[in-house]
């Protein structure tokens, strides 16, 4: 035999799953929400999404080039980041502001820490918070959604978000189908839930984080005398629980770690909603828990099969 054989370490077969396929699944899961955004807020949503996605991909490409490392735009993770950032913005935000957000997300948070898998906070969330702090009025300018109830209107063009509006303004149905103010991807609860179900079925995410996050938030609302269902359906909680808190890089890999992390997210979200001036607690609490992930992971190393506790005094 004269041809060369490949010699490599076992295993010699690999599953068909790839990073790209996973990212593609996330994009598919976000499709209903993106379509809903365009229906609810008009085609300006589509423009915003396109701007963010294109900027993120371009910035990813450029920063990898500058750092002289292989291009990673093929893994589609930059598309996901752009999409998530867009869905977290109000529809009439200045495109330049949105592009600045992309810069924060891709260049500062993601690539400066080493690229995919290395960042310690969620890029889209971190960008959103930077924008929120830098451009508070632009970032909290809620254009009236298509079909939103009259009572929610603040002036001719804007209306209150469900969390800021007076009780009784929005019905559950309004929240489910997104007839309310908010960032373009957070208003339509039904679309978000649909995407979440898809991700769980495709085994892209484990249901632990969204379920525990939502359950904790519901319990807390109950304890605070709030309407749990209303709380769950509003203020970006679903978007956060399903798509932001489950970001691989910034959530624990162990099952118990996921539980602790999600409980933390739920607790902080409701505490912020109740006690801070900003009704928006989701982004901050996820970001906070992101930072705690290494600690949580260290606390929750699973017990390996056959693990025996070392007897006292025994040297390891």
């Amino acid at each position, binding site marked *: 035999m004269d041809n060369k*054989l490949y010699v490599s*370490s*076992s295993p010699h077969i*690999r599953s068909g799953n790839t990073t790209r396929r996973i990212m593609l699944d996330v994009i598919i899961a976000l499709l209903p929400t993106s379509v809903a955004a365009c229906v609810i807020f008009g085609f300006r949503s589509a423009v915003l999404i396109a701007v963010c996605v294109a900027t993120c991909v371009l910035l990813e490409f450029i920063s990898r080039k500058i750092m002289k490392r292989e291009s*990673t735009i093929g893994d589609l993770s930059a598309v996901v980041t752009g999409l998530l950032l867009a869905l977290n913005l109000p529809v009439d935000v200045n495109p330049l502001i949105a592009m600045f957000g992309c810069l924060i997300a891709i260049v500062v948070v993601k690539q400066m820490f080493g690229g995919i898998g290395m960042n310690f906070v969620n890029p889209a969330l971190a960008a959103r918070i930077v924008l929120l702090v830098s451009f508070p009025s632009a970032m909290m300018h809620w254009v009236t959604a298509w079909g939103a109830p009259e009572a929610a209107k603040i002036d001719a063009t804007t209306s209150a978000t469900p969390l800021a509006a007076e009780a009784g303004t929005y019905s559950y149905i309004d929240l489910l189908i997104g007839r309310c103010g908010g960032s373009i991807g957070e208003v339509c609860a039904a679309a978000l839930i649909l995407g979440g179900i898809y991700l769980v079925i495709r085994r892209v995410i484990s249901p632990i984080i969204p379920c525990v996050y939502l359950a904790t938030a519901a319990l807390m609302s109950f304890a605070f005398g709030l309407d749990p269902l209303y709380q769950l359906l509003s203020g970006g909680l679903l978007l956060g629980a399903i798509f932001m808190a489950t970001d*691989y890089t910034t959530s624990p890999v*162990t099952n118990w770690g996921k539980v602790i992390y999600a409980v933390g997210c739920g607790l902080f979200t409701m505490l912020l909603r109740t006690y801070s001036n900003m009704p928006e607690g989701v982004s901050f609490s996820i970001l906070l828990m992101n930072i705690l992930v290494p600690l949580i992971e260290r606390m929750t190393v*699973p017990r390996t*099969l*056959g693990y025996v506790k070392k007897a006292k005094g025994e040297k390891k």
Partner: protein
Amino acid sequence: MDQLSFPKRPYPTRGGVHAPHNKNTAHKESLEMPVPKMVALPMSQHIGAPCVPLVKVGDNVDVGQCIARSEAFVSAPIHASVSGKVKKIDKITMPDGNRLDAIFIESDGEQRISPEVKPPEVNSISDLLTAVRESGLVGLGGAGFPTAVKLNIPADKHVDTMIVNVAECEPYITSDHREALENGWDIISGIITVKEFLDIHRVIVGIENNKPDAIKALREIVDNSLDPEDEIRVLPLKATYPQGAEKILIKACTGREVPMGGLPSDAGCLVMNVGSIAFIARYLKTGMPLVSRRLTVDGSAIKNPSNVIVPIGTPIKDVIEFVGGYKEEPKKILMGGPMMGISLPNDELYILKQNNAILAFGEKEARLAEPSACIRCGKCVSACPMRLLPLELCNAAERKDDEALGRLNAMNCMECGCCSFTCPAKRHLVQSIRMGKAYLNQKKREQIAQSKGGKN
């Protein structure tokens, strides 16, 4: 100890992957390979001390004649698999890269049986252990641990359960499956012999549920055999890789966990490969030592995948030719299964005792996966049957961080391959973890050397 009941269904096990089964040869009768022109028998076909040749170049040997042995406790003698003349004794490169002496025998095609071959007389456990040792038997499932050593259970261990391993979870491989279908009676008589001598009263035949015909066949034989106390049961297992790994099999069959760094006997279990147990029965009947075995030849580059019964030491090339040769240019040849097998540098090697499969793949299957950055998806964590954190172990190994490797129990990794298989970023986790384990071992040796040096 718990009451020895039989589980109705397997105990839950964690992790594992659904690797494509590809059991293409399961329904084909095994073929018997004609005597090759030349065989080569390396001096180590087992875990333990290598053997020393008992024959010289030019000696005539007969089938079954012992041609090499070692007095070490952990070792297994080697027997001529063909009759003929010792042509040379020369170094060959083993699959793991070690250079080792091998006895080359040129066959005369007559297959004369050595006068040494006669059924052993076995009246006690020590007779059985001697006989099994003399038979040259090693674990036929792939590990190659000398069976006599395995059966010699230390006095301080209480083994109450024997598990017969027919799980055969590696893709492609069907040699155990065929053994179960073709030699059911040998299996049962081997089981009865071992269980009587070792005073074991619970035997669980663990078999993956993707082999319904073998389950049925074995159950029928068990039902019709001399088992008045009903101490042998067939237990269908779920068909996920790696159900057949010793520690996982023990967990699935008995619910017990082998303590880290321990042996099956620490969990009261003896695990025997089905081929090994059937061989014991045949050896006691005929006295013919381990000179041939059944193995699966398959893979995308093989024209006519089959199970073949071959003399030990047959050149791999001859075996492949016997099943019709290659149908495309082979780009990767494996000894063993695709999850844990060793990839060979060429097809110029020889069949070893513990070799349960030869697989050859074409370009498409052989192409190496290109690793990218870890995305921390946690899929390796959910896939690890040992409940380790493969991504962390891999990082620690790459950093050469022995503290982290120790804390994360790197030594408990059995290199099953589930983590690498499932990783969407195609990271070479097993490869790194294996290096990390070697590093830990090296550290340990250094420490021991140091503390010894300190005392003197």
